[in-house]
């Protein structure tokens, strides 16, 4: 059942069409009528001018010819003497016409002449166009033309309007109803799905037709948005569970230690040990909380006030220096390959933390005797790239898509320490700066990559602002990398 909106729309379209028909027809009629009238007028006036210069006998001949030649009986002619007495013609009497050659519309009574038998004389009065000419010899000549044709034209137009417009309007109404009904139904569908989504059924999606029209595209976008919301909600739920789990473990251990202590401790040394352990467990719980808070802060803050230009190569060197001893202790070769010396706009503390995290991970997951290669490079288009490559177990495609989720740890990492928040933190920091984070397969091993965007090699300044640089960086990633699903425009800042 079409809604009132449909009806209104359809009616509107119908009325518009009808009006258009009327206007077109009207204009056509008026134009045609005007043309016809003008040509009649012109012809009458011409004839008047010509005849007024002829001799009297010549005029008489002309009048006769005119009457005889008037096969359609549309013409009127009357020759009157100066006294008003009719000499020749089919007009009964001298009609009221100002002199002068101007043709005018007048009404006359139809004469009981040869015209009356031809049907058109059935009217009591006729509208004609007539002109009054003053002849050389003082006679008055009236020339006229019936305007019947114009009436016929008018009737034709009216018939056309009725005959053609009415079906057109009907078609418009039906078509309008159908179209708007379709649109209404689509909207109703969307509305229904959204109601269900709002009620909590996040997995619902809008039906998307194959069409390339705006509405289909809109539905597709809304679906993408719902995908993202569903992912985020799953993450949040997952995080809630994970946080609870991650906190419960150290707190349980803490509780156990303290309980043992409460049950009686023999000596001060043991007391000291228990206290130390208790502190460690508490710290672990606090670390998890702090890390989570920091990630949230970084994600939701617009901390660009602490941004300044810094030398990336120096920052990376600092990180490598920091981890040199750790790598050495584990028998891992830590190598820094520097192919570029760009300056970027960023927060030095946060970037150092991000780079350190990546190096830390690479070392943590490298086998003894393995090597970790940190490489800073810039390609011919100015795109700056930092990669940290290890030869550890690597990440599968499945893992690569999820590794920056909070608490996510690839299955084989279960024996290595860590809560799984490091990469979430790196991701948050990288995103805040408008850079991009990606992971590639090192075959074997994993390569963590930060793309810093296009940086001018000459001025050393960010040629594009951080947010745009991040977008450009993501677009520039090669097929080998799995870019972590972050739709365009989804920026924390």
């Amino acid at each position: 059942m079409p809604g009132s909106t449909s009806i209104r729309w359809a009616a509107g379209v119908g009325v518009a069409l009808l009006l258009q028909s009327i206007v077109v027809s009207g204009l056509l009629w008026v134009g045609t009528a005007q043309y016809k009238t003008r040509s009649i007028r012109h012809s009458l006036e011409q004839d008047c001018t010509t005849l007024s210069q002829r001799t009297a006998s010549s005029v008489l001949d002309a009048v006769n010819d005119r009457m005889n030649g008037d096969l359609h009986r549309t013409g009127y002619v009357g020759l009157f003497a100066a006294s008003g007495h009719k000499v020749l013609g089919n007009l009964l009497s001298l009609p009221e016409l100002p002199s002068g050659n101007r043709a005018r519309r007048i009404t006359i009574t139809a004469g009981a002449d040869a015209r009356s038998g031809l049907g058109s004389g059935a009217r009591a009065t006729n509208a004609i166009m007539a002109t009054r000419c003053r002849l050389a010899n003082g006679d008055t000549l009236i020339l006229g033309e019936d305007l019947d044709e114009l009436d016929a034209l008018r009737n034709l137009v009216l018939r056309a309007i009725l005959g053609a417009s009415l079906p057109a309007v009907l078609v418009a109404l039906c078509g309008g109803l159908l179209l708007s009904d379709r649109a209404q139904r689509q909207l109703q569908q969307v509305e229904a799905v959204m109601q269900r989504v709002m009620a909590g059924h996040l997995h619902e999606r809008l039906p998307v037709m194959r069409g390339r029209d705006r509405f289909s595209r809109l539905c597709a976008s809304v679906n993408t948005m719902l995908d993202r919301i569903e992912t985020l909600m799953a993450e949040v739920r997952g995080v809630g569970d994970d946080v609870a789990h991650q906190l419960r473990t150290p707190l349980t251990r803490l509780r156990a230690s303290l309980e043992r202590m409460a049950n009686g401790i023999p000596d001060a040394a043991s007391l000291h040990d228990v206290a130390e352990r208790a502190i460690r467990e508490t710290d672990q719980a606090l670390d998890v909380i702090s890390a989570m808070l920091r990630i949230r802060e970084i994600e939701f803050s617009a901390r660009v006030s602490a941004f300044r230009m810094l030398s990336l190569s120096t920052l990376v060197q600092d990180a490598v220096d920091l981890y040199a001893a750790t790598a050495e202790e584990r028998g891992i070769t830590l190598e820094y390959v520097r192919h570029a010396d760009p300056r970027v706009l960023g927060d030095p503390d946060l970037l150092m933390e991000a780079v350190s995290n990546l190096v830390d991970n690479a070392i943590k997951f490298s086998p003894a005797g393995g090597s970790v290669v940190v490489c800073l490079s810039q390609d011919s288009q100015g795109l700056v790239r930092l990669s940290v490559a290890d030869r550890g177990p690597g990440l599968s495609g499945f893992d690569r898509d999820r590794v920056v989720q909070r608490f996510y740890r690839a299955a084989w990492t279960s024996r290595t320490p860590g809560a799984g928040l490091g990469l979430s933190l790196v991701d948050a920091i990288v995103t805040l700066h408008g850079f991009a984070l990606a992971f590639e397969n090192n075959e074997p091993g994993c390569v963590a990559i930060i793309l810093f965007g296009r940086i001018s090699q000459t001025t050393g300044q960010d040629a594009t602002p951080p947010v745009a640089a991040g977008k450009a960086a993501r677009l520039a990633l090669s097929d080998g990398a799995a870019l972590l699903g972050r739709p365009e425009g989804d920026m924390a800042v």
Partner: protein
Amino acid sequence: MAKILLIEDDDGTAAEIRLELERCGHSVTHVISAAEGLAEATRDPPHLMIVDRMLPQGTGLDVIETLRIQGDRTPALILSALSALNDRVDGLRAGGDDYLVKPFALLELVARVEALLRRPFDPRESVIHAGPLTLDLLAKHGSRNGRPLNLLPREFDVLAYFARQPGAVVTRSMLLADVWGYRFEPRSNVVDVLMSKLRRKIDLQDETPLLRSVRGNGYRLVLQR
């Protein structure tokens, strides 16, 4: 040793801080509001202030700002439960000298307090003599009782940092902030490993250990017995 003014409205925290500082030999005056803090700082200027950011009737930052406007240059350490990234910047802009986020280890607090109380380094120094250690700051070459230490540049920087303040407790975060120049908490024991390696180079088997760890979280260079 030093007169410290503590402006903190949480009694539990204040008690812990006071105990620890007094244990280290400082004297502590404790007030619980911004107004009292300002009054006390003006009446009896301390060597250092520890100011909690959230106070009743006004923030700790206001106290510091007011004192700075008055020309007071007393070092101020800000304590805050706010770890938001802009808050630290705000704190330092208000005139604070250091910023600690709760919860913090007491060791960290004490180390930072003492760092603030110390005289700044003399930049014209070119050689540091600390007990058996001799550090040539220009050549970046260190030796212990004549024995060359073969330190990497960064290791030398760390040792120099300790040698300039013998006996002072240095925490991991202080090392990172003052030697590397970054404020962040590394996610593993990277500093510990670094320090172990350094100690192996400096303190050989038969020698007296100079670099000692303090309560597991800090380090100090110990010169006297």
